[in-house]
């Protein structure tokens, strides 16, 4: 029987035919090109237009950068070296490097001080930015503002020490009484700090001599990119607590406090930053006591902090509103009072939701620090538009300088936004 079966069927495949390779146009680079760049005639045209645009930009910019001259002392020397060829005079950056970074008045033998302050900033900021690091490092973060202040401004060491002592005393009082009664601890802490500062201010002139370790630098001598960094870091860190307070105030049940917060937030968000800077430069001094002189840097910090606090408050309000009502009710049913509920349940979740928005505000504020050049402070843009472009040596070197400023800001802002995206992925605890 089996014999018959074999004969009746003409052909039986004994082995599977090996799969033939896909056609060339369906594999590798060609397929990728076909799918991603030349799928339809319309898309092909778009690709060609894009290629042409890239070519135009690169053919203009690349020779200019590659032919760049880095070692001349003035524009005319640079032009001689180039001999009519296309090329950038990057030597303006090397020659004016210190002015671009520190401004033109900061004593040049003291540049190590802001450098050290910047170097110390990284370990100070690290435990705040990366949660995996040991929490003990936060002690250094808390000390950093005083160290940085003393490094950059110099002068008697007693001033930052006194400020630190006030904060320590306030913190100690809060630790002692805050557990039992938040309000008592909070206001008691403020009172203790104020008492320490007041006592210290009475004693200080007696003890403070001129035997200063670091030479005092007045804040009008600060400038360059250092000024942008200082304004950005100071204002963002000061405006975070203020913004949280404003957001909580706006959600409060107390009509008076809610009203104050709403008026403040809407007013600040309704006017451009530049008008607030005008207030800082021409108007704010009218509101201080007649004999006092508050320097421009501090006035600008006050106004910029108010500005970003209002925006951060709105971001956090969005985070608070996004929390389900059940979270508030759960906190109430556990018997937590308002400060406990906020500190332990509501704010950790609300702040987590608001992180991208807060980082956006921080990036925006850092970019907006360039506006201080309008009220004649010599930040990076102010230095470029003022002393450098006005000098006889470098009149007309626009592209190299503006390109450098744009590059610096791009590096910092892009870095921050990448960090925020990393943090968002890191904090995503929901399952998707």
């Amino acid at each position, binding site marked *: 029987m089996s014999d018959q079966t074999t004969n009746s069927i003409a052909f039986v495949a004994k082995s599977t035919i090996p799969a033939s390779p896909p056609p060339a146009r369906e594999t590798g680079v060609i397929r990728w090109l076909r799918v*991603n*760049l030349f*799928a339809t005639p319309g*898309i092909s045209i*778009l*690709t060609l237009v*894009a*290629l042409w*645009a*890239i070519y135009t930009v690169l053919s203009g910019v690349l020779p200019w950068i590659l032919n760049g001259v880095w070692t001349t002392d003035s524009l005319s020397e640079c032009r001689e070296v180039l001999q009519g060829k296309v090329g950038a005079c990057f030597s303006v950056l090397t020659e004016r490097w210190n002015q671009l970074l520190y401004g033109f008045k900061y004593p040049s033998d003291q540049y190590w001080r802001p450098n050290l302050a910047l170097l110390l900033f990284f370990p100070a900021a690290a435990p705040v930015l990366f949660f995996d690091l040991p929490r003990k490092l936060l002690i250094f973060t808390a000390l950093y503002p005083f160290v940085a202040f003393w490094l950059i401004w110099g002068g008697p060491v007693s001033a930052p020490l006194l400020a630190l002592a006030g904060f320590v005393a306030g913190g100690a009082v809060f630790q002692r009484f805050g557990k039992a*009664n938040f*309000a*008592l601890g909070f206001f008691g802490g403020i009172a203790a700090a104020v008492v320490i500062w007041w006592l210290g201010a009475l004693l200080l002139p007696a003890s403070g001599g001129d035997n200063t370790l670091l030479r005092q630098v007045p804040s009008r001598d600060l400038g360059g990119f250092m000024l942008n960094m200082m304004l950005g870091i100071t204002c963002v860190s000061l405006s975070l607590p203020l913004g949280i307070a404003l957001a909580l105030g706006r959600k409060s*049940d*107390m*009509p*008076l*406090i809610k009203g*104050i917060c709403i008026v403040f937030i809407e*007013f600040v*968000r*309704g*006017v*451009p*930053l*530049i*008008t607030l800077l*005008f*207030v800082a430069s*021409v*108007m704010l*001094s*009218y*509101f*201080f*006591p*007649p004999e006092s002189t508050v320097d421009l840097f501090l006035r600008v910090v006050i106004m910029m902090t108010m500005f970003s606090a209002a925006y951060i408050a709105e971001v956090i309000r969005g985070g608070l509103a996004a929390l389900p009502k059940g979270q508030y009710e759960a906190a109430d049913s556990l018997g937590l009072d308002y400060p406990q509920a906020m500190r332990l349940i509501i704010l950790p979740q609300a702040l987590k939701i608001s992180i991208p928005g807060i980082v956006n505000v921080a*990036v925006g504020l850092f*970019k*907006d620090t*360039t*506006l201080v*050049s*309008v009220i004649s402070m010599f930040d990076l*843009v102010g230095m470029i*538009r003022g002393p450098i472009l006005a000098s006889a040596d470098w009149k007309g070197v*626009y*592209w190299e300088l*503006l390109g450098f*400023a*744009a590059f610096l*800001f*791009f590096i910092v*802002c*892009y870095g921050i*936004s990448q960090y925020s995206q990393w943090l968002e992925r890191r904090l995503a605890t929901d399952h998707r």
Partner: protein
Amino acid sequence: MSTLSDPPKLGFRPSMLINDTRYRSLTFQVIAAIVLALAIWYLGNNLLQNLKAAGLNISYGFFSTPAGYDINQRLVEYTSQSSHARAALVGVLNTLLVAFLACITATVLGVIAGVLRLSNNWLVSKLMMVYVEIFRNIPVLIWIIIIFTIMTASLPAPNDFRGEDPQASMLFSSFAFTNRGIYTPLPFFTSGIFASAALNWLLVIAGLGLSWLVTRRIGHWATARQEATGLRPKTGLWVLAAWLLPLVLLMLVMGLSWELPELKGFNFQGGIKIGGPLIALWFALSIYTGAFIAENVRAGIQAISKGQTEAAAALGLRQGRIMNLVILPQALRVIIPPLISQYLNITKNSSLAIAVGYADITATLGGITLNQTGRAIECVLLLMLFYLTASLLISAGMNIYNASIKLKER
């Protein structure tokens, strides 16, 4: 034998002010009110003392005195003999002009970039990503300065247009691109129906409004026909006629003519001049804010679930119609609120005009007028009042629009 008794009636004790929730909020508000009053009193007192020491007072009398400075870019009549109030008005109009222009171009740019960012074309979507990242991460002030520098450094001076063999020539002999600004032809009527030019232009706008009404009627009629017969009549030609006929008729009757810019003396005369600062500010604000709007548009489109696209494709709609009829109308609800805040940002960022010398309200009232009169408090307060009003008006208007397109459910 009642075991239940009323809780003991306790009198009011001072500790209840802080421990009893009934009184606590009252306590805090009283404290806040006292602190606020003290702060206002302290600041006000300082202000009065400082003003007295400086021999100043708060007065707006300076507004009627002659300003004494010139403004190149202006929408209304103004000479250096006009009052400070008139200069402020010129500034207000200039602010509104640049904000309006930049809002339109930023929206167009942003929508195009946002849609292309999601394109299937790998190269184009990456290119748009580069555009968005570069423009978002560099301060707008630097962009304004860069574009102003491009204007002044790379475009020819008016003098280059002179002579037998000029270095630069006018486009179609009617547009001149110079480093002082762009000159375009100015349309005007030789035999207008009304004496004043403004009324004639109003007539043209009324004509366009009429065309719009007629096109709407045609659309309604076509829809009614489609619902009755199942076939939509072709209305393209009718719509074209409705737009063109009244316009052409008005132009012919009133004798439209063009005033061309001409090189006279050291500069171009006649035509419309769009000054360099205006162009720099307009362009910089557009591309900067366009990058933000592109991200909003992308987020809005991605917020629409993929099922919507698939459902539309299953109905047999083409790619373009899926976008226009299904995705964008839904995405708009997500896009509009952040778009409003971008418009507000444009209005506020237009105050950076002061960096390139465009005479907006910040440069006139907050700049030259402030410096000439020394009336810092009055000028800055009025400046803030203007921006506050503009911001509130824009957000109010946009909120009304937002409410009208909101999803109406239950």
